[in-house]
């Protein structure tokens, strides 16, 4: 992974000092609430319903065991002993004291971490594929490019006060596990002959007005990545709307101009700067890639290793289930990637205790070269585990509550903090997630349903990604009461689609029942091997609607 040198350390330590000064000025009354707001936001500090919330940047989700242990310690010393994995592969603390934040930042800086630009109208944490570097279908490892983007965007002097927040994601494989089509800029690595480059998409996003990104460039040479991003953000900074925060994202500008015209303006700007100093040199590219080289894999006979694992699985059904749902193929024979589930029933999705953070650190050290990854579906990945040690890992993960074998199933939900914590929410989301997990707790049934993304947001800001859930649930306010709208057919994959509203909303108590009726229609109508989303795409909304809203006879 990327390691700081003295210059990175100097920049982050300057930042800690700067923020300490800002906090002191605020506490001394020299800065008003209004003046302090953008300063604390650019530092990831929100004031929530019950307490401040501090969002820590985890660049493209990558953490080492030292960082995990430090995060655990911070959660213990400054918070209530737990933390939360976010959909931007970041980590949040829910109960820090505002006065303590400078000290927390100083502790983070010691392990090469920070909370820079995790909120506010600036360029946010760049996200990527949790299986970067190990996926079999990967064209090139996206992490070196993510790191170059991280550095370019960190304290960018021109782009710290954009019309609205700005999110970039990079995918290294055609199968999109980074939801790049739902980002302000989606960068898809492509290969032309020997040359690596990027397909560039702009204008995707969720929130109140969900939009799927459109291509503005089919092939951008590797060395031009930063200058092209600079051109896009410069055009947006100058032309994006600033009169209405709900129309200020780049997606609205791209829609207003049309992707073609927006792309023309970007190209015109880029022409002026493409031969400048931002062009990546071969040395810089090699340097960035040098941080993401292969760990010291052992040589295994893949066929023999697969057979041995198969035999273990056959003798233990619970292990076999876990293996089937929670592991992911690795490009190196004899290895697999493992997803640790943070979604056992009754725990808010994405929440981990201080002990669990330490357990992830221990497991990473023991089984996966000391590194782990936060995923956009709020779980954690150990990317490089020997197959002959999976049984051992499974037993250890079970002990720490991470081995719920539900990855990719109905109960592996993406869920925002909702009305329990968030001041923007119209409705609670965590109790809805729990009610659904309780109703559908039969593993055989969940496996029979197969891959199914259910996403829950407590309001139209869509932090729980309800627009791109195969089933999406949106909390709405109906005359002061919490209701839930159900949507079907969304996807954040390379075949991205936006979910459609099923019909009138439901009370919280009704939601699990409604989900049950939707699943019954799928089960009765599916063809062999057909996933929920495929059945939906074939039969459409109507059969689901008829069943859910049928009058009781």
């Amino acid at each position, binding site marked *: 992974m990327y390691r700081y040198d003295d*210059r990175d350390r100097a920049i982050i330590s300057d930042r800690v000092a700067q923020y300490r000064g800002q906090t002191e000025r605020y506490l001394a009354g020299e800065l008003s609430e209004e003046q302090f707001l953008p300063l604390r936001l650019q530092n990831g500090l929100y004031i929530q319903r019950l307490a401040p919330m501090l969002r820590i940047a985890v660049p493209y989700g990558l953490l080492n065991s030292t960082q995990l242990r430090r995060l655990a310690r911070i959660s213990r010393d400054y918070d209530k002993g737990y933390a939360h994995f976010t959909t931007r592969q970041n980590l949040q603390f829910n109960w820090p004291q505002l006065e303590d934040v400078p000290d927390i930042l100083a502790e983070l800086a010691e392990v090469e971490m920070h909370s820079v630009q995790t909120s506010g109208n600036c360029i946010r944490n760049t996200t990527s594929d949790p299986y970067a570097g190990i996926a079999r279908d990967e064209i090139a490892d996206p992490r070196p490019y993510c790191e170059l983007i991280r550095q370019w965007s960190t304290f960018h002097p021109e782009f710290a*006060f954009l019309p609205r927040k700005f999110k970039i994601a990079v995918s290294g494989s055609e199968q999109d596990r980074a939801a790049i089509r739902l980002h302000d800029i989606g960068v898809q690595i492509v290969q032309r002959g020997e040359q690596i480059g990027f397909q560039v998409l702009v204008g995707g996003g969720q929130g109140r007005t969900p939009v799927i990104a459109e291509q503005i460039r089919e092939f951008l040479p590797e060395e031009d990545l930063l200058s092209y991003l600079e051109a896009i953000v410069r055009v947006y*900074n100058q032309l994006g709307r600033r009169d209405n925060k709900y129309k200020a994202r780049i997606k609205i500008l791209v829609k207003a101009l049309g992707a073609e015209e927006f792309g023309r303006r970007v190209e015109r700007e880029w022409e002026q700067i493409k031969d400048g100093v931002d062009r990546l*040199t071969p040395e810089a590219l090699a340097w*960035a890639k040098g941080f993401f080289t292969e760990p010291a894999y052992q040589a295994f006979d893949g066929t023999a290793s697969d057979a041995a694992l198969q035999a273990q699985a056959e003798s233990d059904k619970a292990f076999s289930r876990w293996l089937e749902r929670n592991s992911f193929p690795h490009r190196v024979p004899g290895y697999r990637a493992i997803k640790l589930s943070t979604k056992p029933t009754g725990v808010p999705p994405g929440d981990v205790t201080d002990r669990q953070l330490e357990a992830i650190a221990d497991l990473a050290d023991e089984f996966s070269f000391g590194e782990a990854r936060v995923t956009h579906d709020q779980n954690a990945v150990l990317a490089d585990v020997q197959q002959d040690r999976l049984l051992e890992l499974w037993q250890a993960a079970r002990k720490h509550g991470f081995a719920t074998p539900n990855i990719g199933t109905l109960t592996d939900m993406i869920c925002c903090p909702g009305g329990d914590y968030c001041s923007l929410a119209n409705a609670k989301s965590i109790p809805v997630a729990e009610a659904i997990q309780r109703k559908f707790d039969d593993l055989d049934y969940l496996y029979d349903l197969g891959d199914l993304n259910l996403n829950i947001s407590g309001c139209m800001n869509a932090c729980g990604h309800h627009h791109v859930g195969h089933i999406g649930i949106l909390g709405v306010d109906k005359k002061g009461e919490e209701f839930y709208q159900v949507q079907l057919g969304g996807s954040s994959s390379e075949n991205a689609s936006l979910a459609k509203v099923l019909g009138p909303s439901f009370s919280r108590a009704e939601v699990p029942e409604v989900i049950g009726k939707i699943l019954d229609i799928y089960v009765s109508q599916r063809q062999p091997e057909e996933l929920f989303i495929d059945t939906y795409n074939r039969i459409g909304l109507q059969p689901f609607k008829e069943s859910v809203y049928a009058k009781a006879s």
Partner: protein
Amino acid sequence: MPKPANSPQPENPAQVIIDGAVIENAWRLLPQADDDVEITADSLAPGNVILPYKLWRSLRDDLAERAHEIGVWLDSDESAELLGEDAKSLPLIAVHFPAFADGRGFSTGRLLRERYGFEGELRAVGAFMRDQLTYLRRCGFNAYAYEGQQPLAGLLESLRDFSDSYQAALDQPLPLFRRRGLA
């Protein structure tokens, strides 16, 4: 898009920061005027004056002899491109930040310097914050007509909140990836 009648206008503070020092403000900035208020080259008092862009455009020929004491200010929706090659001949350009959250002026400043070769005084005016001074400086601003709390001397340290930076900008010709001493 027509501006609301009460759109914020830059003020004329008594002191400004120029090149890292607090000095008396030697320029008078004229606000944007309603169309029915007629300002002509003859009615303009002598001395250094900063005109709103549209007024400057209509009077520039009549003011040719006073060019050394005529500056221009651009509002946040007026791009560097409007001045273009004319920028080089101006002694002072001011860029307005009607609200600190309106970051268009950062691009405007940078483009005036990098694309249009402006070398005169580049002055930030309006509601920018102390904590934006480093960013403003990096985008090419060397003068700041700060409207917030005084004294200005307390602000000077915020011009140098960071000892290094990742990006190239006006204060640093090379991005960090070109300065790490890579083989």
